[in-house]
């Protein structure tokens, strides 16, 4: 009986893994062969690594991909920082002080989930016309929309983290010991919801690196629009770049979960 269950479990896992891995392996395969001759080559990967100099040499074909890549890197950082700075204190505050607002905040945070990106863009058009005038047309200002886009996912992750600790008692204990709000946030709340913050960050990174629709429709250059452009002239590089972005996100996840990975538990076990 047990044996049978185990077998079924492995079959399910295998099917799911195949579902994920076959496209990835196909991408890898495609990235490693000359499109016409079919000979093995690492050229495309070397191009991805040296994309900067390639773009400098041939700005017409690769310039936008390089710009898009840089923009996306900045966007990732900006989005994550704004998200954390905006959401963590707000959610903590709502839980501690204005409980009656929590439904409203939740509703607002989950709202973007229900609006298709294409609809969002229609509304964003005029907003970004203003942003362009007040700030600039620089792609990095997409960070504002991206914060909105990641809101539902980040909210869920952080909410679970905050629900897992006795926020009220911990903060009151800290206050009675003489701590004020900034220190409570930084030294008491954040360390205890670290893994929730890390997962919120990761979701944000993945979402920003994969975003295409809004950037394209608002005529901004990010990684995905760059890949799209290049794919029309150099399919192999486009696929390789996509795969590289995926691997980067995956590595990031590993590194983050290693760091967050409850250092407490590891330290605690040795004590």
């Amino acid at each position: 009986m047990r044996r049978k269950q185990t077998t079924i479990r492995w079959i399910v896992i295998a099917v799911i893994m195949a579902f994920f891995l076959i496209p990835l392996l196909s991408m890898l395969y495609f990235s490693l062969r000359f499109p016409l001759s079919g000979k093995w080559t690492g050229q495309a990967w070397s191009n991805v690594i040296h994309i900067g100099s390639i773009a400098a040499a041939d700005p017409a074909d690769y310039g936008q991909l390089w710009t898009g890549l840089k923009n996306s890197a900045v966007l990732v950082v900006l989005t994550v920082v704004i998200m954390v700075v905006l959401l963590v204190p707000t959610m903590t505050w709502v839980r501690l002080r204005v409980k009656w607002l929590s439904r409203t905040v939740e509703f607002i945070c989950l709202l973007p989930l229900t609006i298709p990106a294409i609809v969002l863009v229609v509304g964003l058009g005029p907003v970004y016309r203003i942003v362009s005038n007040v700030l600039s047309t620089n792609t990095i200002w997409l960070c504002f929309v991206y914060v909105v886009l990641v809101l539902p996912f980040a909210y869920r992750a952080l909410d679970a983290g905050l629900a897992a600790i006795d926020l009220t008692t911990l903060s009151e204990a800290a206050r009675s010991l003489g701590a004020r709000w900034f220190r409570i946030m930084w030294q008491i709340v954040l360390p205890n919801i670290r893994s929730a913050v890390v997962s919120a960050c990761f979701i944000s990174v993945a979402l920003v690196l994969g975003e295409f629709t809004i950037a394209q429709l608002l005529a901004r250059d990010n990684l995905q629009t760059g890949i799209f452009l290049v794919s029309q002239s150099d399919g192999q590089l486009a696929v390789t770049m996509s795969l590289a972005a995926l691997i980067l996100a995956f590595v990031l996840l590993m590194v983050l979960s290693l760091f967050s990975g409850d250092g407490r538990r590891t330290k605690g076990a040795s004590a």
Partner: protein
Amino acid sequence: MSTARMDTAGVGTVAGVAPVHGVLVELNDLRRSFGTVRALDGMDLTINPGELVVLLGPSGCGKTTALRVLAGLEDADSGRITVDGRDISSVPTSKRDMGMVFQAYSLFPHMTALQNVEFGLTLRGKGSAERRRIAGNYLELVGLSEQAGRYARQLSGGQQQRVALARALAIEPKVLLLDEPLSALDAKVRVQLRDEIRRIQLELGITTLFVTHDQEEALAVADRVGVMWEGRIQQIASPAELYTAPVNKFVAEFVGLSNPLPGTASEGAATVLGQRVPLLPGSPPSGSVTVLVRPEAVTLVPGPDSAAGSDVRPGSVTGTIVGTSFLGSTGRAQVRLADGTLIIAQIASADVAVLRVGETVDVRLEQVPALAVASMASRGSL
């Protein structure tokens, strides 16, 4: 008790943990409502320097609210709070210098016991070596030096509350506030830790407010117990006085057991069950009353139809034993009178085996002063 307080070099004293200067805390006419609920309704309380006052009362009577208002965690709608004569109403919690131990486990989960105790010291600008030394001393005071490197989840409930106590004391607060610190612990640890809290409190001489709904706990640790009900202190007195001389029905019934028996008052005494019982001050001088008789003021004598049935006093009442229970050092018997009234009597534990259910006994009331309340408007008399 006062001698123990002076003798700060008693057993268990830890070098480096100095007695503090106790402060005078006064709460004046505090009021606080939550919607239509009046959590505090004109509460007055004075805690003398170095005194341990327990707030005792049923759930929802406003104990926690009072403590939180004192700590600054809750704002009062009106009223005054002074510490050593200084009004602290506008001082934020972080500056009030009040050590607090909560009912819920409150250790910071990402810090070791030692780091928890050090937290408040860091905020007071102590260097790391000094911090470590002071925190170590307080952990030793609560008997947890060995566990300094452990995280909260590696400590038992009782140990966590000890660390919380050390953490609260390490900042050398003016006042120590304890909100049902023992209620999550099991009975044995509870007794042990409450005695320890009392020992430490006496040793340090720190002004302390302790909130509980457990009367045994209250009577055991307090210098004075304030019995709270409906947002106000009904009576504040030493445990003995509270028990022997309650000022109203609520206090009499909440602290210890009592039998409400009908009687007639006159000239400072009442006739109950055909016997005269002296009345406490505060009882109605005359008329129809309900007398609250403690179980230990009731004596049962085997009745006329039993072997030793020669000693029947005129005017006494007979009843039938309906149940007995063995409580260790004492016992308890329930007696039903002819008119259906149920009386609880305290008996010697040896008698639990002797008195049989169904046996007829003579019910006698000792000459211990009891509180009486007017029988018609008993609630209004508070």
